[in-house]
């Protein structure tokens, strides 16, 4: 099979995955939740019951013969359209970009679900990117040292760190970090002690090492770090960097173990190969052997895992976003599920699934490109 055939086949399969996921979420939410929640994204509270019924009928969730809105709410017979028909009318709306209004409290009334998602997504993407960079920067050296010092102290230390990452309740780590950096590490300013960082949110307003009033930036992309560079606001950039530090570190600590373990085992595998023996017997320095010869081959499996980690984090880190009040899509999805915003949940799961499937595909293709032995 040619590579492009393989890609096309996977992309076609992705469509089926997306349809299946949207059906599962649709049946879970519409099938069991009260009928009002299906209608909520499309109506405003000011509408009369007759108007709401009209909207319900035009959306294809209430039968045309339904006598009144209260009958629809009470699931009276002859009022609720069968679910599979509802699915198709919902799908038609969704594909034309009509996802209704957001139901999450605290969001400006009249914000569409789509707008909310677009506003929140850059925050999650930025957090995931920084976390992945941190993971790679920490895990690859740890894995290499672990493999080259097999069963010695550095190996044990890095293995325990990796295992601690696997075993860490991230919601707990998040609070412990906040406790340490906000309560216990303080810098005196005037008469009071001010924490090194402030507890949570996107920007700190009061902390020892940040600007309390960094000014404002123009939202070119929605990514605070990029926008602050584009706007030339260094203070804002510094503050954004401080704000993202703790959540990104928390996230990366949880994913550190997986990458370290892969780097370690593939490095050990590579160091045992004949060409490494040859390189050593030629009298090359150990550093050259490890970093120029072994690492090149050992890094491939690490690439795969990094791809999966990136996809998983981009899909939203619900718990960490919740702990740090980070305004990303993961935290929004949690709110959406609490306030039965079914359309946001649909949008969120579908986008996350697209990210996961596409990331896996990209990793596979990249792998085939980098390692000529792999063919599909």
């Amino acid at each position: 099979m040619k590579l492009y055939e393989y890609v096309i086949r996977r992309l076609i399969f992705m469509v089926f995955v997306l349809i299946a996921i949207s059906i599962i979420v649709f049946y879970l939410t519409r099938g069991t939740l009260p009928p009002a929640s299906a209608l909520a994204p499309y109506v405003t509270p000011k509408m009369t019951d007759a108007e709401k019924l009209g909207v319900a009928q035009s959306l294809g969730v209430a039968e045309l013969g339904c006598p009144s809105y209260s009958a629809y709410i009470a699931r009276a017979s002859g009022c609720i359209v069968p679910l599979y028909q509802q699915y198709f009318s919902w799908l038609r709306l969704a594909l034309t970009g009509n996802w209704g209004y957001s139901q999450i409290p605290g969001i400006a009334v009249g914000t569409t679900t789509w707008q909310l998602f677009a506003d929140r997504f850059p925050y999650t993407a930025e957090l995931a990117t920084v976390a992945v960079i941190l993971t790679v920067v920490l895990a690859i050296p740890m894995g290499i040292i672990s493999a080259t010092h097999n069963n010695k102290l550095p190996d044990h230390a890095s293995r325990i760190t990796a295992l601690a990452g696997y075993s860490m309740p991230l919601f707990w780590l998040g609070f412990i970090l906040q406790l340490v950096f906000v309560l216990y590490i303080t810098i005196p300013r005037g008469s009071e002690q001010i924490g090194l960082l402030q507890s949570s949110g996107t920007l700190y307003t009061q902390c020892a090492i940040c600007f309390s009033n960094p000014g404002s930036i123009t939202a070119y992309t929605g990514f605070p770090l990029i926008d602050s560079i584009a706007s030339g606001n260094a203070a804002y950039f510094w503050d954004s960097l401080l704000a993202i530090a703790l959540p990104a570190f928390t996230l990366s600590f949880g994913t550190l173990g997986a990458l370290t373990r892969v780097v370690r085992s593939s490095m050990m595998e590579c160091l045992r190969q004949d060409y490494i023996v040859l390189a050593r017997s030629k009298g090359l320095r150990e550093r050259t052997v490890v970093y120029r010869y072994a690492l090149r081959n050992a890094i491939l499996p690490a690439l795969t895992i990094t791809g999966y980690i990136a996809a998983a984090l981009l899909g939203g880190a619900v718990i960490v976003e919740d702990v740090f009040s980070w305004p990303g899509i993961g935290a929004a999805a949690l709110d959406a599920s609490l306030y039965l915003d079914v359309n946001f949940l649909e949008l969120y799961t579908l986008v996350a699934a697209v990210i996961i499937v596409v990331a896996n595909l990209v990793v596979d293709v990249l792998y085939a490109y980098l390692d000529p032995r792999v063919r599909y």
Partner: protein
Amino acid sequence: MSNPNNQEKSAQGTPKTTGEDREKKGKKEQPTGRLAEIRFALYLARRNPLVIAGAAISIISILLAALSSLIVPPNIWEVSNLAMRLCWNNPLINWHISSVATCSGAQVYPLGTDSYGRNLLQMIILALPLDLETSFEIVSSAFLIGVVLGSAAAYIGGLVDEAIMRITDIFFAFPGIVLAIVILTVFGRTLPNLTIAVLVVWWPIYVRLVRSQVLSEKEKPYVEALKSTGASPIRILYRHILPNSIYPVLVQFTLDIGGVILVFSGLMFLGFSPNPKLPELGNLVSDGIQYVFTAPWLVIFPGLTILLISLGFNLLGDGIRDVLDPRLRR
């Protein structure tokens, strides 16, 4: 890969054992087969202090969980004592926070009290059986589903394989915890629903793992030999292939006990607890977060317990993996 221990034994068996071990073995008949494998595995595990630590933590936590109702009155979590709310009187730790309240009375609360005035240490001990039991339930169910579906997919192949694997693909593309959240939102926050929600997220891993193991195992010559003796496919699968391919799945099982506790307590932390007073480690952390700057022990100790239990099972699983995989030995 089927029988790593045998290969390893022939490669480096006796010369590597210590003098003490050789003496013991010399007295008895040299054990063969499974018994020898188990002995050799135990010997390897003994040499690794991390495995010992992991095994110790796991066994202690299981014992504590089993005996918790004897140590602590099982219904004491329902009793609030608001007079003793959020206080600390363990002299060993000074929190250096001005607002910490000191518990009055002679009774020492080793880990302070929570927002309902309950003894936090008692709550943590009471939480152990719930967390461990749920985790075992979820992982064993996922394990069973994995063994049945995974071996069916690999052994029957064709359309069955395709169907099972495409379904797992769908679940792999789901953002896991959100599916669990949707299930809990829709069906209500009860303990059985929490168990099911995590299970729905967890089973596909086992199907993939068992399938890949069985796939590589069924091409081995001994399966061919069994077929030629006329053994039934079911017998070959369940009596021969599965026992030989189960080790990596058992490693995953051990590792997942910790992993599931993290997800389960994470869901509790996010507010999906059926009862805010329920002694469950994640729920205890969740109860403590609003007091994190005035009563930090409420967050620290339950979370530390989660970390310890999870670390224990992970160390154990990691050690078992090292023992079973000859490439990682030495």
